[in-house]
């Protein structure tokens, strides 16, 4: 008796490519990343894709699985399969390099544009800042801090799809954590950066980022915080658009 198999359709080529069909043996506790790896190792070694840790820590294996952006290493086939098959493509809202490898540069460029890098206000000669875990700002930062920049929220975001200038949920979420970090020295510039064209005010609060985030974060709430902060600063005359 033949082993049970699944039909897998995988994007091949660049933006002008197309889906190719493969037949992969079905195994117990098989992840979508296992399926992609099987195709590369046993059917077509030219298949390009990206992965590293395989345990949901690095965020590099994010792909579109049956229309939904997912970490493929943490997605069991049984959970994602639809009509006996899988359709696996690169992350949406990003250029395709080849096959399942999306070009992450726009994502990280926007992260930089949102002033996502920490700017210290002290030197190593100064005493260490004392941050109480119960402070409101620290609680707000903690709620958003676990982002690993996998790009799933960016791929799921309707506003990114419609407005290429929009910074996206991850970059804005990162900016929100730093705005709540009293050790940071660049928050005036950061607030100006996240309220420029394509900034937090462009978010329509569809909450796809929250719905799809594998870390269970809520970037929409972070963006709402940025909007409140921006509105207050604008009305006080501290922010000149």
């Amino acid at each position: 008796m033949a082993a049970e198999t699944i039909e897998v359709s995988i994007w091949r080529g660049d933006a002008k490519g197309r889906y190719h069909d493969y037949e992969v043996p079905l195994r117990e506790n098989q992840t979508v990343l296992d399926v992609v790896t099987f195709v590369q190792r046993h059917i077509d070694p030219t298949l390009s894709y990206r992965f590293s840790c395989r345990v949901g820590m690095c965020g590099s294996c994010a792909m579109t699985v049956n229309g939904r952006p997912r970490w493929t290493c943490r997605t069991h086939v049984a959970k994602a399969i639809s009509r006996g098959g899988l359709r696996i493509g690169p992350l949406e809202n990003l250029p395709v390099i080849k096959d399942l490898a999306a070009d992450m540069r726009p994502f990280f460029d926007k992260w930089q544009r949102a002033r996502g890098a920490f700017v210290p206000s002290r030197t190593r000669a100064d005493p260490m800042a004392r941050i109480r875990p119960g402070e409101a700002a620290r609680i707000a930062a903690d709620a958003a801090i676990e982002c690993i920049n996998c790009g799933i929220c960016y791929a799921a975001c309707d506003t990114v799809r419609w407005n290429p200038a929009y910074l996206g949920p991850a970059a804005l979420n990162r900016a929100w954590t730093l705005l709540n970090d009293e050790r940071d020295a660049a928050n005036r510039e950061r607030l100006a950066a996240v309220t420029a064209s394509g900034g937090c005010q462009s978010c329509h609060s569809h909450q796809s980022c929250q719905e799809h985030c594998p870390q269970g974060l809520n970037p929409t709430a972070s963006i709402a915080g940025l909007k409140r902060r921006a509105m207050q600063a604008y009305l006080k005359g501290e922010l000149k658009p």
Partner: protein
Amino acid sequence: MSLRLYVWQRLTAALMAPLVIVHVAVIFYASRKGLSAADILARTRGSFMWASFYCAFVLAASVHAAIGVREVCSEWSSLSERQSDILGTLLGCSLLVLGLRAVAAVVSP
């Protein structure tokens, strides 16, 4: 959308929220009490309160809708930012003129 437009859109929405509630309550009141057009005009003509109420409503709605439509056009259509600006401004001006004309018709003595 610039931050300035965002702030204007949110402020006009905040202003319209209570105005819409009062407006809907007035519609229910007028229909349940069976008020005729003459009854309504008798209450609104020469009324500074109703003139102020609906002028504020028209102003807020014109600004709010113009910004919203401008945003929809710039995101969902092939119009450029400049073209969306023009379309939104034209819509806002049209709503303002038509709305103020309607207010004048019911509050002018």
